[in-house]
């Protein structure tokens, strides 16, 4: 045996589950001004805050996709949370949501962003949009729904302002309760922060008893989303004012 192989104090970090958080951000023309300004400011602030959150459970990395007439990734591959530096997002063009779904589908694969030898938590897919798709998105959305990573993913959507098409966002998350509306800057900042922090912890923090009696596999699979829904319901505040009012 080599020296290292006999050294009880010289250990690698404990095996952690990979957790990829994918932000899918609408950067079409309508997002310009305050909306993208808030997104840039809060993302720059919140990502360093989740650096320590994974603890000994999850190894968090972040991918950022922007979509308008084009689809771009901020980095070629998901970046470890400790290394990520936010690059200011700019806006232009249409809301080609269908293309975004096509691109996301290709990356939610072993050959894409999910290749790892160790165990993974299901990815977090965090969509933010203020509008309606300008392309025929249905085919690509139907296709991605067959992707097993997508199926298991914890999906959240923030509808920015009243023009956002909540139905499409709910089609993406598969649950109207995980679509949350942000009608002004402070609400958007608060929701992005809270949902980022919450989604990075779900599955690796202490939970409370939600029901008595034996758990079925279906209930177990739905538990993380149920926890997310509870957090979302707790976060929505009545004082939220319309994003599109008075700007």
């Amino acid at each position: 045996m080599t020296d290292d192989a006999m050294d009880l104090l010289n250990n690698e970090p404990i095996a952690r589950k990979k957790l990829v958080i994918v932000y899918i951000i609408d950067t079409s023309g309508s997002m310009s001004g305050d909306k993208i300004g808030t997104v840039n400011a809060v993302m720059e602030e919140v990502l360093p805050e989740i650096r320590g959150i994974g603890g000994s459970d999850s190894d968090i990395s972040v991918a950022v996709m922007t979509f308008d007439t084009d689809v771009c990734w901020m980095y070629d591959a998901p970046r470890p949370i400790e290394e990520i530096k936010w690059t200011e997002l700019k806006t232009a063009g249409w809301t080609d949501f269908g293309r975004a779904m096509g691109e996301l589908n290709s990356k939610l694969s072993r050959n894409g962003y999910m290749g790892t030898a160790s165990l993974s938590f299901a990815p977090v897919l965090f969509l933010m949009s203020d509008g309606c798709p300008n392309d025929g998105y249905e085919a690509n959305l139907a296709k991605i729904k067959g992707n097993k990573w997508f199926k298991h993913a914890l999906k959240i959507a923030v509808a920015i302002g009243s023009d956002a098409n909540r139905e499409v966002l709910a089609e993406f998350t598969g649950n109207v309760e995980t679509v949350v509306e942000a009608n002004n800057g402070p609400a958007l900042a608060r929701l992005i922060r809270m949902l980022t922090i919450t989604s990075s912890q779900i599955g690796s923090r202490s939970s409370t008893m939600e029901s008595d009696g034996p758990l079925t596999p279906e209930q177990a699979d739905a538990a993380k989303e149920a926890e997310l829904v509870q957090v979302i319901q707790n976060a929505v505040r009545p004082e939220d004012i319309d994003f599109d009012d008075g700007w």
Partner: protein
Amino acid sequence: MFKFKKGDRIPIRDGGDAIVIGEKPLGSGGQGEVYRVEYLGDEYALKWYTSPSIRENRTEFSGNIQENIVRGPPKDGFLWPKHLTEEMDGGFGYLMDLIPSNYSSFSDILRTYRVRTVSDGTAVRDRVGFTRLDVMVLSALRMVSSFRALQLSGVSYQDLNDGGFYIDTDTGDVLICDCDNVAPQGSNFGIRGKPGYMAPEVVTGHSKPCRDTDKHSLAVVLFKLLMRGDPLEGSAVCSCVVLTGSNELKHYGTDPVFVFDPTNTSNRPVKGVHSNVIKNWGLYPGYVREVFTRAFTDGLHDPSSRPIPNTWFKMLSRLRCDVVACGCGRQSFMSVMDTGSGNYRCPGCGREHMVMVIGGCPMVLAEGKEIHHCDVFPHSEDFETVVGRVVENKKVSGLLGIKNTSDRPWTAVLSDGTTKTVPIGGGVPIADGITIRFGTTENNFNSIPEGIIRR
């Protein structure tokens, strides 16, 4: 955003206000947020509950914390709730002491580093870890001793996990935090636990956290501390690729398999992923592997087969006796140094060490080795008091001896049968054939334990 900002005042039930003094919370977790506050001139940590289910049951939950405050911690080493706040906006919290900066979170120890943000906003990794094997085992002993005291006081902890421990890796001091779920036998105020640490019957929903489920969680914590891996995460778990809720239910609830199960090899550690456990498991003595094997085979399904804190205490006391820190710098256990012919040779430098056999158990006498009260006296629970230490004679270079640091004189019996008294502060040279009796005739000679020094 967060509930409180700097300068906010939170009324305390015992009178006065706690004032938030940090710009941001110290942390946020599943149940709430933690802030640095000042109360009556002292600094504390305020835990403020944000969890909807706790807020709904706040009367029962805060009532239990109040009972814990009155009950007090079972011994030192707990970061125990000290003052409850008044209710505010349907929420509440409690004050506890702050964690001193010389302590590292157990999560960081398992991760081997702490993330620190430097002034330009970038993150750096500071290494966190033990530098002495005996100190690592001592920290495990202190954890177990604290849990034993907790259980003997009639309560259970209910949410044992890596986030609840802080350890000074230089001294082995342990602080047990998050004591707000501690509850008397038969009570549970809503906590379920953390994935990976919950007993299988809690994962499946057949049981609520209790003393028996604490035993499983304690075994997981100790396995992670010593082996640096998860006892139930092996090839079967990795093959599911994504750890979904139903996969977790299966591998940690309905069909858990220990990674070193002697008969079921379906979930062995994976090379390149679980390198630590593959390396460390074989380096620990057999009696350590036996206790873990029982905890994670029979103990998974039968709570009465789970090792109790006292079993861990005995195992860890023995393990600490077995630690050898050779002068060459290598630290290991005696089992690794055993040549098979009753001699102990350092695999690093080749030096052969003398041993002292107490009650049938040999202990390597390398310089610096400490002999504790519980190592000598069979029924002692005192693992802190050092009764003897291997030191070099100040006048004769290279001559090692055992210094009497206990509170009573010893008797040394030389190989020719003559006896000498070893006063407190005196020492016995380490030489083949010398027997040390850890007392004198004045302390009822027959019941005095002895150690026999041999090559």
